C-alpha cells in the first residue's frame, strides 16, 4: 500500500497483514511502526497476526513417506506410455 493512501485511510486488517508478511515498503513500514505506538486497533491486529503467522508456520505437515517415490513413478509411467497421462490417481 502507498504511504499517502495509508495516511488518508488506514485499514488495520490490511495494514497488519502486509506488515506481518514483511511486504510494506520501507517508508510505509516506518510510518506504520510510528502509527502503531498510538493506534490500539492496529497494534492489536499486528499482535494477533504475528501470533497466527507463527502458528501457521508450525502447521506444516510432513510429506508422507513414499509419496515422492509414488509421484515419480506415476510421472515416469506416463512418460513411458508416451501419450497423455490419464490423470488417474491412487
Amino acid at each position: 500500500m502507498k504511504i499517502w493512501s495509508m495516511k488518508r485511510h488506514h485499514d488495520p486488517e490490511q495494514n497488519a497483514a502486509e506488515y506481518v508478511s514483511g511486504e510494506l515498503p520501507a517508508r510505509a513500514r516506518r510510518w506504520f511502526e510510528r502509527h502503531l505506538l498510538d493506534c490500539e486497533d492496529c497494534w492489536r491486529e499486528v499482535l494477533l497476526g504475528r501470533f497466527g503467522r507463527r502458528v501457521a508456520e508450525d502447521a506444516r505437515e510432513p510429506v508422507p513417506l513414499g509419496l515422492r517415490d509414488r509421484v515419480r513413478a506415476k510421472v515416469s509411467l506416463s512418460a513411458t506410455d508416451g501419450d497423455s497421462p490419464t490423470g488417474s490417481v491412487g
Partner: protein
Amino acid sequence: MVGRDSRVRGNRDPRPRVLDDGMTLREDHEEFLHATMGAMDLVYNLARRFADRVEEAEGLVQETYLAAYRAWRDQRRPRRVEPWMATICLNLGRSRYRTRERRPIEVSIEDRDFRAPEVEDPEGAAEAALDREALYDAMRRLPEEQRVAITLVDLAGLSTAEAARAMGSPRGTVLSRLHRGRRGLAALLWDEVREVEDR
C-alpha cells in the same frame, strides 16, 4: 498381425519419443521432476487444505503432478515453479471438492471475549506451547479460502501478489483472508497456549 506382447503393452513404443526441441520424452520427464519435486511440500500441504484424509491428499498431489507434467510436455513452462504448481493444485482441489460442504469456523474472535496476547513474545509462546495435532485441527477449522491463503503465504513463502494470482483473487482480498485466517488461528489456539503457560 498384432502379437500378444504388443496388445498387452498397448501403444507403448520402446523407442524414446523425440519432442519438438529434440529432447526425448525420458529426458523431458526427468527435467520436469527435477524442476518440480522441490514444490512437493507446498503441493501436499495445499492438498491437505482440501482433503480431510491423508490418502485423499496424496491422490490430489499425484493428480497435480500429472496435470503439471501434461502442461510441461506441451511446453507450458512457468518462470516460477511453486506458484504454478499451487495454481494447478488449487484448480483441481476446487473442482474435486466443490460440492463438499465446508465446515465454517466454529470460533471467531467476535463471538467471545478474546484479548490480544499479553505476553512479551507471542510468537515464542505459540511456538513453545502448541500441540501439533491441535494445530492441524485448528487449521482445518478455518474457512477454505483462509486456509489456502495461509498455506501459500505463511507455509510456502509466496508473496501475497503471487498468492493472489494463484487464487485468482485481488491482492487486497488475499490480504484480508490471510489476516482473518491468522486471527482465526490465534483465536482458536490462544486458550491452549495460556493453559500450557499456566502449568
